[in-house]
C-alpha cells in the first residue's frame, strides 16, 4: 500500500492533496511521520510547500464556499484516525463535481464530515463550559484541560475577548501545549513539566492566591445548595457534563 507521510500541519495536508493530483496516484493512507508503518510499504514523503497548499486552497474556493473550507479545517483538527483520507475523498468529489457538493447530505463523506464537524465544535463548547481557572499568587488565572480533539486553538478568541483584563493560561495536558494571554496578545507556550498535579489539575497550595481556596469552597457550596433533591437525576447530569471532564472540575 502507498503511504503519504506529512508533517501534521493543515498546510502539509493540502500539499499532500496537491501531490495526489500532480503524481496522479491515490495513496492508501495519508499519515503523520510519527505513525508506525507496516513493512513493505511504498512511501512518499510530502514536503510542505506553501505555494502548493495555496493552489489546492484556490481550487477549492472555486468549487465550495468559504464556510465549507473552514469546516474542512475544523474536521482536520479532530485528529481522528484516517481523517485525512475522508478529507481527501471529499476534496476529490468537490473538485470533480460541477456543482457544490457541500449540502448533499445523502453522500456518505459529506454526512460523515458534517458529523465530525459538529463533534469538534461540541468539544470546543465543552472546553469553554468546563474550563475552571485557579488564581495564582502572582495574579494569573490558570486552568488545565484535556479535550479529545485539538480544540484549544479554536477557543483563543473567545477567552481573549472575555477575560481581556486578566492574565490567563489554559494548558492542554494531552497535547502538551497551552495558550497564554499576557494582557496584550495570546501565544502558544510549552512546558517540560507543567507545575500542576496532572491527576486533579490543581496548582500547589503555596502558589495559590490567598482567597482561591475560599472561592472554590463557595462554588462547591453554591452547587450543593442550588440542587433540588426531589428532582435528582444523575444520569441527566452525566449526559450534559460527560464524566471525562470531571477530573479537572473543582466541583467534582
Amino acid at each position, binding site marked *: 500500500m502507498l503511504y503519504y507521510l506529512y508533517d501534521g500541519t493543515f498546510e502539509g495536508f493540502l500539499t499532500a492533496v496537491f501531490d495526489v493530483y500532480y503524481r496522479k496516484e491515490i495513496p492508501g493512507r495519508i499519515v503523520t511521520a510519527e505513525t508506525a508503518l507496516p513493512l513493505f510499504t511504498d512511501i512518499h514523503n510530502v514536503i510542505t510547500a506553501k505555494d502548493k497548499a495555496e493552489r489546492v486552497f484556490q481550487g477549492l474556493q472555486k468549487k465550495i464556499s468559504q464556510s465549507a473550507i473552514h469546516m474542512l479545517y475544523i474536521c482536520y483538527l479532530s485528529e481522528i484516525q484516517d481523517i485525512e483520507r475522508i478529507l481527501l475523498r471529499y476534496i476529490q468529489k468537490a473538485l470533480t463535481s460541477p456543482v457544490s*457538493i457541500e*449540502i*448533499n*447530505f*445523502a*453522500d*456518505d463523506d459529506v*454526512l460523515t464530515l458534517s458529523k465530525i464537524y459538529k463533534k469538534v465544535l461540541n468539544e470546543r*463548547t465543552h472546553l*469553554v*463550559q*468546563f*474550563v*475552571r*481557572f*485557579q*488564581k495564582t499568587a502572582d495574579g494569573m*488565572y490558570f*486552568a488545565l484541560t484535556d479535550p479529545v480533539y485539538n480544540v484549544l486553538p479554536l477557543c483563543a478568541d*473567545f477567552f481573549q*475577548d*472575555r*477575560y*481581556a*483584563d*486578566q492574565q490567563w493560561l489554559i494548558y492542554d495536558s494531552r497535547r502538551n501545549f497551552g495558550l497564554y494571554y499576557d*494582557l496584550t496578545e495570546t501565544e502558544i507556550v510549552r512546558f517540560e513539566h507543567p507545575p500542576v498535579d496532572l491527576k486533579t489539575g490543581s496548582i500547589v497550595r503555596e502558589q495559590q492566591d490567598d*482567597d482561591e481556596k*475560599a*472561592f472554590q*469552597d*463557595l*462554588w462547591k*457550596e*453554591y*452547587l450543593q*445548595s*442550588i*440542587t*433540588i*433533591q*426531589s*428532582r*435528582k*437525576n*444523575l*444520569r*441527566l*447530569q452525566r*449526559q*450534559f*457534563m460527560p464524566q471525562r471532564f470531571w477530573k479537572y*472540575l473543582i*466541583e467534582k
Partner: protein
Amino acid sequence: MNPQIFEKLKILAEAAKYDISCSSSGASRPNTEKGIGSAAGWGICHSFTEDGRCVSLLKIMLTNHCIYDCGYCVNRRSNDIPRTTFSVSELVELTIEFYRRNYIEGLFLSSGVVRNADYTMERMVRVAKDLRTIHRYNGYIHLKSIPGVSRELVAEAGLYADRLSCNIELPSEQSLRLIAPDKDYQSVFRPMHYIQQGFLESKEEKKKFRHASHFAPAGQSTQMIIGVSPDDDNRILHLAYAMYQRPAMKRVYYSGYIHINTYDSRLPALSAPPLVRENRLYQADWLMRFYHFKVDEIVNETHPNLELEMDPKLSWALRNPHCFPVDVNTADYEMILRIPGVGVKSAQLIIASRKFGRLTSENLRKMGVVMKRAKYFITCHELPAYTIHEVSPERLRQLLTLSAKKKKDDKQLIIHF
C-alpha cells in the same frame, strides 16, 4: 474574606433554587476597552447540578425576607427558616470572582419583597449598576422584576440588565387569588408591559442612532408553576401562546410543583413533582416555537390535556392521520417538520440534500431521523411501506407506546396475546 458570606450564600442560593430559568442566551456583547466579560449570544452552561439542571448564571436572592405569603413559595412569610440579606458589595464581589474563574456566565438576581416593591427593586438595580459602571462588567445580567414595581425602576433596570423577567406563577387569576392572595394579575402584567414598551422603544431608537442605549436586549421571560392549581394544559398553553405573540417575550418556563409547604391545606399533596407533565409542556412549547404548530392543534376544548404516554407531536399525528404519509422527497418544510421522529435539524438536512437525488430510508436514518417512529408516517424513494393507514391509528398508538414502555423494564417477562 468575610466568613459570613459562606452562610449567606448557602441560605440565599437555596432560596432561589425553585426558579427554573437559567438561560444566558439572547444577548451578544463584546468586551469593551479591556473590561471584564462578554455575552456570547448563545448561552453557555458551566456546570450541571445533581438534578440535571444547568448552572449558567449565579442564581441567587438578594434577600429571602419577604412580606408576601404565597402558598407555593419556600420564602413565604409564615415559614420558619433562617433569613439573611446580601449587601450590594458582597454580591458584586462574588459575581466578579466567580466570573473570572469561568464558573458562571453572569448573574441572575431575584429577591424577596422587603418593605415594598420599589424599595426592593432599587437595591437589585444597584447591584446591576455597580457591576456595569464601576467594574466595567460585560457579562450577562438577568434581573427579576418585582410584582407591582414602578415604570421608572423597570426603565433603569433595562439599561443594565440583559433580560428582565416577571413570573406569572399561576396560570389563572382565580388560582392566584386563592393561593397567593397578596398578588394580583395587574401587578404581574404591568411590569411585563413596561418591559415590552422599553424593549420596543429602544429598538426604534437603535434604528435612528447607533449609540442609543440598549434596553434588556435578551427580552423577557416568565414562569408558570405546573400542578399546583387545577388549571389544564389547554389554559396553560393558550396563555403561553398569547405571551409568545408579544415581541419581547422570549421564553415561558414551566416548573413542576414541588410540595414544600406541606402544612398548607390549599395546596395539592403531590408525592413527587409532575416531571412528565412538565416535560410534555416543554415539548408542546417547542412545537409552538420551532415547529410552526398553532396552539389549537396541540390542545383545545375537546382535547384539553397533553397525553403523558407520548409526545404532543406524535399525539397530533395520530389524531390527524389524513395528513400522512408525507413524501419526504416532495413535501414542503412545514410538513416534514410535522413527521414524528424528524427534528428541525434533520428536516433541514432533508430539504438541502433532496436537490441532489431522491432520498432513501437509509439516508434518512443516517441523517438522524428516528425511523422507529417516522416509518409509519412517510414515503420515500422505496416501495410504499407499512404506513399509518395500513396499521390503523389505534394499533399504532399501542405499538408506539408499548415499545416505549418495554424499554423501562426489559427483565420483566411479557407475554403478548
